[in-house]
């Protein structure tokens, strides 16, 4: 009876030490999560420095010397940001396609020389283009996206429709006027960053980085695997690079994934777009 009290005290003290340790760990982990979220947030919400160069270097009315060069963002006009790799700077290894300005067809997008070498050797054997088959599923492990894909067309104003309220609201849409993923040319996918109900399928699209994999299941049973070349943020809708998204390099199988970005608190709308550029690197049968 008498030696019980110290035991309770001892248990309390020990429990207390554990609680303090746990609390401190929680504090550190919590702060770390906030910092990480804030860092990737900045990446998602702010335009890549290249976006400015992209916009500034558009020279729309000059005669087209080559279809793929003049209407597209030119790497030459891009200001090099300090420290961070700019995906739009183009490859420092020789481009394997005729259109080095298309970020999805450039091979050397990583800023680390060793990683770049690895990327180049990965790309030394491009898989050949696949025949037409509609996409039905998308899997992006890096941002835990696992969604069905459905076809979508244009609205009455000629703009690309977006997923509407209903069963497909939070699914990924494939523009049915673009090639099917894996076919020659740029396949175009889009999804909401959020809806009136909250976060949607591409809430974290801007957190993707070069080298990340995007797997697309097709109706014919094949899976087309794409590797991210560049993630770009276009600050305003007027800077949306239509020619690059829907045209660009027609000679190899590439992918563009679009969502909204750059929320304007003043008007309560997103005024920009995040676009992921990727190219086909593997096919699973």
């Amino acid at each position, binding site marked *: 009876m008498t030696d019980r009290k110290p035991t309770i005290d001892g248990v*309390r003290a020990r429990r207390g030490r554990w609680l*303090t340790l*746990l*609390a401190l760990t*929680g*504090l550190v982990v*919590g*702060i*770390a*999560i*906030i910092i*990480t*979220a804030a860092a*990737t947030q900045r990446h998602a919400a702010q335009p890549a420095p290249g976006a*400015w160069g992209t*916009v500034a270097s*558009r020279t*729309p009315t000059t005669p*087209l010397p*080559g*279809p793929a060069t003049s209407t597209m963002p030119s790497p030459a006009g891009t200001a090099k940001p300090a420290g961070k790799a700019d995906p739009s700077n183009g490859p420092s290894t020789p481009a394997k396609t005729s259109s080095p300005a298309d970020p999805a067809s450039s091979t050397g997008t990583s800023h680390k020389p060793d990683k770049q070498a690895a990327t180049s050797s990965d790309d030394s054997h491009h898989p050949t*283009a696949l*025949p*037409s088959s509609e996409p039905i599923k998308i899997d992006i492990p890096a941002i835990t996206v696992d969604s069905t894909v459905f076809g979508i067309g*244009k609205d009455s104003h000629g*703009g690309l429709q*977006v997923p509407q309220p209903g069963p497909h609201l939070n699914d990924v849409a494939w*523009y049915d*006027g*673009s090639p*099917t993923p894996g*076919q*020659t040319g740029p396949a175009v996918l*889009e999804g909401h*960053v*959020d809806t*009136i*109900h*909250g*976060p*949607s399928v591409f*809430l974290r699209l*801007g*957190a993707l980085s070069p080298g990340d994999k995007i797997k697309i299941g097709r109706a014919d049973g094949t899976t087309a695997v794409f590797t991210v070349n560049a993630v770009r943020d276009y600050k*305003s809708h*007027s*800077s949306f690079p*239509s020619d690059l998204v*829907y*045209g660009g390099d*027609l*000679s190899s199988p590439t992918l563009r994934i*679009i969502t*909204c*970005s*750059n*929320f304007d608190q003043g008007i309560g*709308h*997103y005024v920009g*777009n995040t676009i992921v550029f990727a190219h086909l690197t593997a096919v699973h049968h």
Partner: protein
Amino acid sequence: MKKSLRRAVVLAAAAAGLALVPAGAAHADSGQTYTATLNALNGSGGSGMLKLNLSGDQATVTENWSGLAATFDGGAFPHVQHIHIDGKGQCPTSAADKNGDGVVNTIEGQPSYGTIGATLSTKGSTSAKAATNIKIAPGGSSTSYHRTITLDSKTADAVRNGNAVIVVHGLDPSTLSKKAQAEKSPLVPSLPLAATSPALCGSLTSMPAGAPQTGAGSTAGVEHRGMFALGGGLVTMAGAVLLIRRHGLTSTRTDR
């Protein structure tokens, strides 16, 4: 601090100006762009894509295709290609094969894609009259085509009205049925059926205008709201526990 803030605002304004001016100019006088995904017809195994920018009657065509028949009579297989107009603006399905030889020939495909409006030749004439001139057709199993051509008003209208279809012709004869291999081209009787039958087809559609509106703002631009919540929650909990612990310790000490 205030000074640097002001400088940042000025820089941002300058950058915004840069962004707006050229983007605004881009919309003037650049014409409308149309694209066509070229899918295999008649089991050709090929695929490709075509982009056409139409400004007035000037059409700048950029096209890539691959996987078609490579050789014919010892030379590069000629693949005549056209902008077809005034049909349904569609590509035919195998149901269009009226004579049951397993091939949708050029005539059988016409109810879907219509008649020839322009020829996408590599040089010389681009009129419908040059439609079967294999000397100025792209040759071989793949091509990277780029040419600016003048369209007549009928063809330009059809492109603008979404009633134009790109058709690339020329099949590998060995892939055809015995019956089809023995047939002659309904267009050029001196050629086998395979030579002029459609191998790739794609409807021209206008490039989507503007930027897609893929957000409603419920997360208000905070793309990682969940992470902020989780982090914030952990910090609050940790703080609370520490506070309670301190209180607990103090009271224990005073007890003693």
